[in-house]
């Protein structure tokens, strides 16, 4: 039990954060406890600090909308925040979809689907950037926020806070897609919001670091990482996991028994030394 907690300490912390944020939203809507009102698209903290989804604002710009100052400020706050803590920290610590896609992945592992089913469908991890570009192009052409109108993430958080409707069907589709079709299919390949935050987090301060001198090459980290291609330097050289696609979920850190992976603050000057030594 103790080891289980140790090897899931970040996962547990992430679930607590994800669920607390959702509970605060629900409390605001259902019981009028106005600490955090609105939803993940735009919200208000304690009736004063606005927050907004910068990707939604970007689509609104593309659609030609002149948005109010409140959301602009809110988007800026969020943008700066994730530029510091790692763009995709949103994915692993806030986005409720992460709970569903993680569940799909755990189910997949439980039934050994990775080993028994040969992977037939090949999907590039760059699809998310195409979808991101397509969102902006369609927003421009159609004059509406293209992704926001179809976003399953929106369906999910709005569903939890304001009522689900038929939204469950779309979410089930994503669960099944991740379970049977492509491993980490939605979050690791398609989601344009994840793509957006990958770009935001390219230069972020908080990152996972690796010390290859204590690494035993057990490769447990690559087994659990939802974006395992970012762990290229593991066992080869020391340095920082610099890819914006790393979600700062901490899975690799918690499973690593020899403390070869740990959270740290990025050293901007020498950041790529590790990778250079690699060559």
């Amino acid at each position, binding site marked *: 039990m103790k080891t289980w907690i140790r090897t899931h300490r970040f996962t547990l912390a992430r679930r607590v954060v994800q669920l607390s944020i959702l509970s605060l939203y629900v409390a605001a809507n259902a019981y009028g406890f106005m600490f955090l009102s609105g939803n993940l698209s*735009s919200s208000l903290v304690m009736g004063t600090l606005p927050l907004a989804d910068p990707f939604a604002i970007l689509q609104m710009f593309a659609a030609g909308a002149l948005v109010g100052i409140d959301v602009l400020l809110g988007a800026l706050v969020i943008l700066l925040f994730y530029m510091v803590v790692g763009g995709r920290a949103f994915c692993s610590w806030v986005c409720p979809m992460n709970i569903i896609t993680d569940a799909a992945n755990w189910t997949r592992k439980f039934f050994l689907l990775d080993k028994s089913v040969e992977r037939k469908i090949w999907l590039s991890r760059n699809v998310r950037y195409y979808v991101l570009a397509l969102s902006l192009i369609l927003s421009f052409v159609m004059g509406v926020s293209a992704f926001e*109108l179809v976003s399953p993430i929106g*369906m999910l958080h*709005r569903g939890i806070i304001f009522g689900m409707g038929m939204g469950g069907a779309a979410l089930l589709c994503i669960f099944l897609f991740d379970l049977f079709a492509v491993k980490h299919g939605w979050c690791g390949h398609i989601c344009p919001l994840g793509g957006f935050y990958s770009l935001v987090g390219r230069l972020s301060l908080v990152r996972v670091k690796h010390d290859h001198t204590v690494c035993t090459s057990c490769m447990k980290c690559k087994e659990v990482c939802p974006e395992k291609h970012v762990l290229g330097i593991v066992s080869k050289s020391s340095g920082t996991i610099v890819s914006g696609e790393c979600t700062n979920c901490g899975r690799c850190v918690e499973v690593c028994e020899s403390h070869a992976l740990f959270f740290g603050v990025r050293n901007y000057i020498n950041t790529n030394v590790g990778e250079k030594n690699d060559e």
Partner: protein
Amino acid sequence: MSNHETQHITARRKFLTLMAQSVGFSALGGMVWSGYLAEAKAAPLILRPPGAVGEMDFLRLCIKCGQCVEACPYDTLSLAKPGDNKPLGTPFFTPRNIPCYMCTDIPCVPVCPTGALEESRVSRVIEGVNELDITKARMGLAVVDVESCIAFWGIQCDACYRACPVMDSAIVLEYRRNERTGKHAYLVPIVNSTMCTGCGLCERACVTEKAAIHVLPLEIAKGAIGGHYIKGWDASDEKRLETQSSDVTTRTKRSEKSAQDYLNADEEVFK
């Protein structure tokens, strides 16, 4: 060497195929996606919260945060869910379930962070100060189906008239003689489109099985006269004539034998 070459070609091939595939998928995805967006945009049968900007701008501006929904003390507003067949996540209300009670402090409007709901649309300037005025809201327009309204049968009802927060102004009761009985009056509700806010309290109050008075979005309920009609009896409207060129009559071959000329030729007739 040859092995190296094949590898080279394969890499380039792979890249080109990948590009072609991406273009293909993007085109397909873009088509389906934009088709859905066009559908969503073209669904104007939806009543927005007070102070909402025009529907096209509203779809652009609303970030779907639901803060208007949370602010409403009557739970009037909700965000469109999958299955509602409305643009996803945008706020709307269904008057027959819960109408807008026209709060004088309009809590739903100032909370909107994007400007999709505009305070200026529901306020007026009184002695230099902006004051909220919910009667300026234009969420829709109440329309009476005279066939199913029992007041038009001659039965006294006036439920909608009494429910209206802008009573005797947005709805008036018109007295008409009931020729069928010869001794009763009809008291029929007539909506004044310049005063009706579209709150839907009348629709909520209507006693018929399905409301005989219902609020429609303005762009559906309202017609448009067109600039070429001018009220000859309204001095200010007649002013518009001054900006017109002197002769605006359409002339064709047939206008030589115009009925007007024939009827008006002999001015004597009118004397």
